[in-house]
Every structure is written in C-alpha cells, then in structure tokens.
C-alpha cells in the first residue's frame, strides 16, 4: 500500500500541516533519531532547514523541490478509503466539517503511483527541514521567531493562492479555521475576527464586511490571507527542545548568531548612520521595535515614524528598508507612501506633535518626555544634551 499518497505533494509543499507530524512520526522514532542520522539525505534536509532560517535575513536562498501532482482524490472515483472514515465525511466530495483529521483515509489510500518513493523522500526532506527551522528559531529572541513566522507565512500564502478550493478547505481545517466554500469563500465570524483583528486595514473590520448567517463573505485572496494569519500563529509557537537536541544544534546556532550580529549592525548602521537611536523618544523607539518584530503597526504610527525619520534626515530608501519586516509589506505601495510623505508629491509632512500621537494611541510617554510637546524637539534636546552636533 502507498500510504498517504494523495497528501505527499502537499506535505512537501506545506510541511506545517498537522498531517506532516503524523506522517513523519511513522518514518522516524523521534526527533533525536532524525538529528543523529548521518546520511546524506538527513544532512541535506537539515541544511535546508538552516537555509530557511537564514533566508528570513536574505542570507540564503532555499530551493524547494516540488511534486507536480494535483490532489488526486478529486478525480478518484473508487473512494475505497471511505470505509476507514468513522465520521462519514467522504462522499462525492469531502465534508471537512465532519472530518476530525484522523487521516486514516489517506493512510489507507488504494491508489498507486510509480514515483511513490520519490514523493515520499521529497515530503520527508521538506518536513525535516521545516521542523529543524522551527527548532532553530525557537532558540532565539521573540523578534526572530516573529520575523520567521511573518516571512514564512507570507511565502506559503503565495503558494496557497494557486490551490484548488477543495484543498484550501483541507488547509483551513488543518489550521483550525471554520469555513465553508460554495459560490463564495466563507469564513465563520469568530475565525474571521481572530485573523482580522491583527490586520490594520479598514476594509478588514468586521463592520465593513458582508456577513451571512454567521459567515463573512470573502474572495479567494482574502480567504487565503485569513489562512496566513492562522498559519503565522502556528509558526510563532515555540518549539520546546531537550538538552541533547540543544547540544546538537549548537554549531547551527553559532552560524546564525553571526548572521544576526551582522544584521543587527546593518540595521543600526544603515538606518541610523547619521542619527542617534538612543535619542529617539519612547514613542518612536516603540514603533521601530514593533516594526522589527514584524508586528502589524497601525497606519498612523507608520506615518509618524516615517515623517519623524525624514525630518531628522533619513532618506526614502533607508525607511523602506525598515518596513520590510512588516507582515503586509508591499514594496511598491510602501515606496509610494514614503515618497508621498517625503514630499515628492508636493508637500513635505511634519512629524505629528505629542497631542496627535496621544489621540491615535501611539504615545508611550515616560519621565524623559517632561516638557516636550513634539517628538522632534525631544530628539533635538537629547542630541544637544549628549553634545552631538545636529547636521
């Protein structure tokens, strides 16, 4: 029997699926077995995992092997796997609302493919790489994990956009999103707001959507964006590891630490070449650190930090660089907006005053802010005190 055959192309593509865990645990005893195997296959898989981590700092370009095979269950007429389903979820179509993801149907699939072993290896490699990348990022600060989650979820979103509705329903089920697809893409209100409350754009507010008997009506692109938000949460979870695993990954961690150090230096150097980060008011420090963590920063805060940085002398390129880790980063849009604030469309915008910052809840006032009414004057005062000459 060729167990999990229909799923293999998807496990290779989406190793974060819960099914991946079930599949891989039947191949290996435990994590330490995978790590201790010295074979070329396992080594390569781990290297790929490391490369994925480095790729979030643009320091590696992972190559993902694809299995060009669609969801074979869609065209399968026999559905002999039906007898293994205790939830009666397999009929003409899959009824994912009934499914409890026991995977017995896939495990007992009666289809055959002569490339099965090749598929299996590709899936295994991708899953090992995925798990390893999660282990690695779990050893670092939260912001690294967040950046990893943001970048990887975004990458997967692009892949998901091309999937069939049937498979998207399976993905949704796996990610715990309550959905339904008929002529529209429907997401249950409660799942929807779990995702949308992390997205800042106005059009995502529940009050601005179409609702039908408990479900929010979406198009495919927005549906996939909801899946992305759920996936991000899954990728953010910390992987707990034991001491022997810790020991094993040490050399990998060292290597990544080096890259991180460079990244940090780059961040401080490029962005703050001529400016002193230490003199930033708490509000701006806060927005910057949120941006670095990949948190979704509200529009008003983005405007504030952009105008602030422009006012103290940074250029457009440096600022665009800063926004790169934001979850909804879109270079073209960002460039347009930053340039707009910078005045290429005629007006140069001033950084908002403290009162305005307060109104939009972007103010993080502390004792150092005493007597200051404007973020820029905070900065200037601090620079004068520290004896730094302003350009």
């Amino acid at each position, binding site marked *: 029997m060729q167990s999990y055959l229909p799923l293999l192309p998807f496990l290779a593509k989406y190793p974060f699926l819960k099914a991946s865990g079930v599949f891989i645990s039947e191949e290996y005893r435990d994590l330490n077995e995978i790590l201790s195997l010295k074979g070329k296959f396992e080594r390569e898989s781990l290297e790929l995992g490391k490369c994925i981590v480095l790729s979030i700092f643009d320091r590696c370009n992972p190559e993902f092997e694809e299995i060009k095979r669609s969801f074979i269950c869609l065209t399968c007429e026999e559905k002999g796997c039906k007898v293994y389903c205790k939830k009666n979820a397999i009929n003409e179509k899959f009824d994912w609302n009934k499914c409890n993801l026991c995977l017995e149907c896939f495990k007992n699939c009666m289809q055959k493919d002569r490339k099965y072993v090749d598929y299996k290896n590709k899936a295994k490699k991708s899953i090992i790489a995925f798990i390893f990348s999660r282990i690695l990022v779990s050893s670092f600060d939260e912001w690294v994990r967040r950046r990893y989650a943001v970048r990887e979820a975004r990458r997967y979103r692009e892949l998901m956009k091309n999937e069939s509705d049937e498979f998207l329903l399976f993905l949704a089920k796996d990610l715990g999103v309550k959905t339904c697809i008929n002529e529209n893409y429907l997401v249950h209100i409660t799942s929807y707001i779990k995702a949308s*409350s992390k997205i800042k754009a106005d059009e995502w507010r*529940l009050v601005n959507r179409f609702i039908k008997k408990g479900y929010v009506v979406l198009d495919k692109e927005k549906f996939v964006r909801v899946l992305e938000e759920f996936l991000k949460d899954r990728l953010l979870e910390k992987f707990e590891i034991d001491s022997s695993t810790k020991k094993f990954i040490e050399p990998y961690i060292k290597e990544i630490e080096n890259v991180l150090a460079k990244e940090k230096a780059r961040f401080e150097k490029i962005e703050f070449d001529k400016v002193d980060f230490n003199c930033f008011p708490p509000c701006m420090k806060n927005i910057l650190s949120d941006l670095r963590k990949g948190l979704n920063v509200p529009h008003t805060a983005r405007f504030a930090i952009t105008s602030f940085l422009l006012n103290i002398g940074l250029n457009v390129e440096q600022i665009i660089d800063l926004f790169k880790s934001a979850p909804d980063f879109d270079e073209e849009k960002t460039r347009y907006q930053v340039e707009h604030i910078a005045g290429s469309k005629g007006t140069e915008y001033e950084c908002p005053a403290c009162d305005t910052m307060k109104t939009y809840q972007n103010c993080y006032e502390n004792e150092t802010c005493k007597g200051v009414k404007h973020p820029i004057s905070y900065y200037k005062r601090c620079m004068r005190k520290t004896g730094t000459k302003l350009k």
Partner: protein
Amino acid sequence: MDELTRAFLIKKFGEYYKNEKLEMPVEFDKREWAFVLLENLPSFVMRRHISFGSFQDFQAFVTSKVPAHIYYSSAYYLKPEIEKMEDKGWIKADLIFDVDADHIPLKSKSYKAALNRAKKEIFKLYNVLITEFGIDEKKIKIFFSGSRGYHIHVYEEDFQLLSSGERREIVDYLTINTERILNGRGFYDSLRAQQVSKLLTKYLKYLIKKEKLIDMLKAYRIRDVERVYTILSSSENLKRIENGDLSFLPKYKGLRMLINDLTDKILNNLRIYIDAPVTADVKRLIRMPSSLHGKTGLKVVEIKIDELDSFNPFCNAVVFGDEKVKVRILKRASFEIMGEKYSVRAGEKLALPEYAAILLMCRGMALYGH
C-alpha cells in the same frame, strides 16, 4: 441606612435566598464569585476571588452572609479563587451584552420610556445575533438587570474563546463604528452599507408618497429643486440608490447634506446601543441571574424573547409579598409597582406593601419603622 432598616433587609433577602430556587450558571465551579454584603452597606465593599465547589457551599454562603449584590465572572478559570488575575488560568468567557438605559440617547427622562427603549435595543441585538451572527437561539439568554436595563448572555463556544481585542470587533460591528458607509460615489460594499442604502430608498419613497420630498429639498436650499426632484423620484434611479449607487446625482452641496443627514438618521436607528466595555471585557463580573438587585430588591429574571415586549419589571421581577410594612419616607418619590401608583413625600409615615417598602429602602428613600 440605619441599623433597623439594614436588619430588615437582611432578614428579607435572607429568606429569599433560603427559599428561592437559585439558577446557578453553567460550570459555576470554574467561575470567580463576588459579593457586596448588606451588612456593609451603604459602603460598597466587594468581596471577590471566591469560588464554590458545590451548590450547597454557595447556598450556605448566601444565606449566612446575605449579599445585596451577587456577581460571578463571565470567565471560566482553572483556579477562580486566586487573587492575581494573571494566575487564575483563563479558559474562556461568555459573550456578554449590557443594554442599559444610561447608555442610550433618550428624549424623555422617564423610567418607563428608558426601559422600553432598552427593550427595543435588545430586540435589535437579538435579531442580529440570530440572523447575522448565526448563533443558535438556545445559546442566547436574556435577563432583566434588576435595575435600568437588560443583559444578553451568549454561551456558544466559538464566541466564548474570543479575546478582548477580538470582541471589540463585535462591538464596532454592532455600534456601526466605521467611516466606511458612504462616499462621494455611493455606498460601500458591506452588509451595513447595503442595509442603509435600502432603508434610504424606502425612506425616499415614503417622502415622495407623502409629498414631503419637495419641501425637504427646499429646506436644504438645493438648486433646481424641480430637476433634482425628477431625478430622485424616477423608479429607475431609486433602484440605483437601493443598489448603493449615488454617482448619478447632481453634485450639489445641499443634496449631499440631505443624503448625509438621512444616512445618519438611519444609522442611528440601526446601531445598537450597548455598553462597549462590558462586551470587550473577558473577565467581567456580571450580576447573577435569579439574584436580587440590592438597589431595587427586584429579581434578575430571565425573559424569553416572546415575553420581552410585555415584560414589566415592576410586576414580573417583584418577589416580595404585600404584607404591610411601616416606613418613614426620606425623599419624595413617584412610582408604580404591582399595578398600583404611589406618590410619597419626605417625612410621611406610611404602611406600604412589603415590595414597595423594600424598593424604597433599597433606594435609600425610606427607613424601616415609624
């Protein structure tokens, strides 16, 4: 409140809690309980972080301590009795809505008008929960708050798991807290905006039928009133408005103002006036159904949706008897209870039915005895 009055209330509330079948909330052992005891009144001392493992324990507590107010947490905790909120181990929380007369813009100040308006809000809210949120009616309960409003509790698990920020989205939805209803070209593509465009069309048709539209256009000092009227009253154009399209209307400032004002009016009718912080809070203390409200002596009763319209708190939430009780009136008051009207003046010494006497004592408007 003097000693005698307090003692009387303790006796009466105590009897109630001994004899009445109290409705415990589901999974009451996972909830935090909080009490304000009658013996501490008039100061409002809350004893909280209390939990009960059994109904007997709970009953023993309320009959011996006799609370003026009983609350429990909307949240379910692993350890409800722990004092530090972070250590309680939050599991989930019922979704709670509070419609209080104090949060509704009212034209009249009368208690009756206020409660009727609150009822209207509850009908609107109940309807949205069923038809738009798709919540099973068995998972929704409506309660009279014991004072100036109504509460709705939702027990559906998907909603119970929502965080505070997520619940805020629901608040914004119900209160229509958005700028995206109408722009220069027409209505936005959302359920709310669509509802508004339909109601606007209905209203325009009504104005046309009643021959009021012309006057209204004049009142807004719109140029070419005749032409604008012709445009607005064509059935083809009304259909376009109904579909959210306003792009064909002449760009007159007055006309724009009229449309905006009508839209605002419709929005104010559509929006549901709930107390936002209550719904957004996932650790709220809420008044226990079937308990007594210490400021009225009325019972927090459950109301079925089809009983809501005829519900009268001063009949249906009254629990005390009509035995005469001697009281001294401290403040002038007019009220109606159990179908009878009362008008009392400060200084009067009266013998009132128990329920009326207790209402006045709870309100601090009368003292026990002559």
